[in-house]
């Protein structure tokens, strides 16, 4: 593997770890279920995308790389479905979204 490819792959892996970390921090810090959903749906999925892209760069064959990248849309579909279900459930349960004025 050429060194530049190794660096690119490592950079993507670290970027992925960063987004996962940001997602977790958002989950811990954000005030209500809707905002926490934003943190997980966006940051974690981008983190997964970075990790998969980083690993795909190391793949030995084109097919193996594409297979890794195939995981991403599936995971996105899953998170879109589950994320929507959570938001709708929260809405049906009558959970009011947190707002700035309410906290003051």
């Amino acid at each position, binding site marked *: 593997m050429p060194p530049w490819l190794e660096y690119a792959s490592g950079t993507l892996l670290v970027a992925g770890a960063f987004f996962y970390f940001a997602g977790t921090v958002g989950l811990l810090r954000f005030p209500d279920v809707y905002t926490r959903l934003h943190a997980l749906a966006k940051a974690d999925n981008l983190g997964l995308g970075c990790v998969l892209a980083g690993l795909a760069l190391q793949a030995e064959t084109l097919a193996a790389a594409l297979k890794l990248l195939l995981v991403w849309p599936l995971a996105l579909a899953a998170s879109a479905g589950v994320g929507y279900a*959570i938001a709708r459930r929260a809405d049906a349960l009558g959970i009011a979204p947190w707002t700035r004025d309410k906290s003051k």
Partner: protein
Amino acid sequence: MTGLELPVALFLLANLAAALLRAARGPTAADRMLAALLFGSTGVGVLALLAHAGGGTPLIDVALTLALLAAITGVAFARRAWRAGQPPTKGDDDAPVA
């Protein structure tokens, strides 16, 4: 292999543990459902990393299958986008819960 796979996988696992504890604490049922979301993204990421950290390519198949099964949950919500002009029927899980 860049040698980063295992550390990153462990880091994600630590994230998953922290996030799961948070999600399990609630306070609402919807919060606890966030755990399902976590397995979809973090779980798959950890599996793919472990495959490259020496776990072997079968783990990629596991990650792919996990993502595929998780994607099926999207079916329930797809129904809603498909039909138009129908009011929520009785017994629909949209009905407000006391």
